[in-house]
């Protein structure tokens, strides 16, 4: 499939469990797509608990929100916040003082179909949970990306979300495993990517290593994909490239630390291979 035929799509980023990195994923993948010269809109549907504006560093530019658009208080164009860095990137903020039941799946569909006309990709940041907010977020989506961590409760919730996406007719569901500590995987103290993929049985579209730069970027409201030193940034960039149809191999784990090397070496000696 060419990149062109995959364009003008709505992608929902979901997880079930909170705190696994949905919003960070949406912010960074959308920046990476916009850096490719694509026109991208991000929609924050976590009404009542918005974060996307803060993570993208756009909180001071927010004037209207999606609920006001739906209720006719402003136009969609007025509510869209232009990104500071990328000319093709816009964000539709969530409302902070309303709740998820104030909008319906059909209304979200209406907003997204308008956005789809203008933008190559519309990324929807789905709230945690499986209630109304989830139903709103998946209503307009053509594809779904499920974010999880290599940790039992996150995998369990991801499994539930994948099941619900499947029963809602989603054919294209991809998986991001976020916050992978390669050292811990090597030592048998964390689920490996293969383990997670085997449990969930959906195709991987990204593996994001644990990376302290993410906290630093979030503090500043800057995308991590702009940091050349960050492995998480590079991994998010690769997710964006896979979304547009490029074949990019999953990043190999970083080299073990010197202590890790000693452990591996001694392990080899004492286990006899």
């Amino acid at each position, binding site marked *: 499939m060419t990149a062109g035929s995959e364009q003008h799509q709505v992608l929902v980023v979901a997880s079930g469990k909170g705190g696994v990195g949905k919003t960070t994923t949406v912010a960074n993948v959308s920046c990476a797509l916009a850096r490719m010269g694509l026109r991208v809109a991000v929609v924050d549907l976590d009404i009542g608990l918005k974060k996307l504006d803060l993570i993208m560093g756009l909180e001071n530019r927010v004037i209207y929100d999606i609920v006001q658009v739906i209720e006719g208080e402003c136009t969609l164009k007025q509510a869209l916040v232009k990104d500071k860095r990328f000319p093709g990137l816009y964000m539709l903020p969530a409302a902070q003082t309303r709740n998820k039941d104030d909008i319906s799946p059909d209304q979200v569909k209406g907003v997204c179909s308008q956005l789809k006309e203008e933008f190559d990709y519309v990324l929807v940041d789905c709230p945690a949970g499986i209630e109304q907010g989830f139903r709103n977020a998946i209503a307009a989506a053509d594809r779904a990306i499920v974010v999880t961590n290599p940790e039992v409760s996150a*995998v369990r919730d991801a499994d539930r979300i994948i099941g619900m996406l499947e029963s809602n007719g989603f054919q294209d569901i991809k998986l991001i495993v976020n916050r992978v500590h390669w050292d811990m995987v090597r*030592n048998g*103290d964390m689920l490996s990517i293969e*383990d997670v993929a085997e*449990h969930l049985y959906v195709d991987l579209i990204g593996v994001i290593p644990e990376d302290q730069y993410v906290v630093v970027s979030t503090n500043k409201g800057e995308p991590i994909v702009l940091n050349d030193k960050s492995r998480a940034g590079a991994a998010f960039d690769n997710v964006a490239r896979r979304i547009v149809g490029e074949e990019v191999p999953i990043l190999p784990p970083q080299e073990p630390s010197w202590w890790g090397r000693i452990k591996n070496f001694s392990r080899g000696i004492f286990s006899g291979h």
Partner: protein
Amino acid sequence: MLGIFERLFNRSGASSRAQANQRLQVVLAQDRCAASADMLQIIGNDVARVVRKHLEISGEPRIHMLRQGRQTVIDINITVKAR
């Protein structure tokens, strides 16, 4: 000596990763079809009762939930008594 190193570097089969995999295996199979361990046992006993109408069986039925891809399979093992 080896034991110390195994413990130090977590090389034993009971690594937390192995435990996480085992626990997920069970919990996901049950989540997907909303079945509890109790319900599985009841299903096993019901099936065994049907089989007993026709064949003599030995022991209790062994029942497991297995996952094949995103589907859950109920695996019931019933041993038939040899003649």
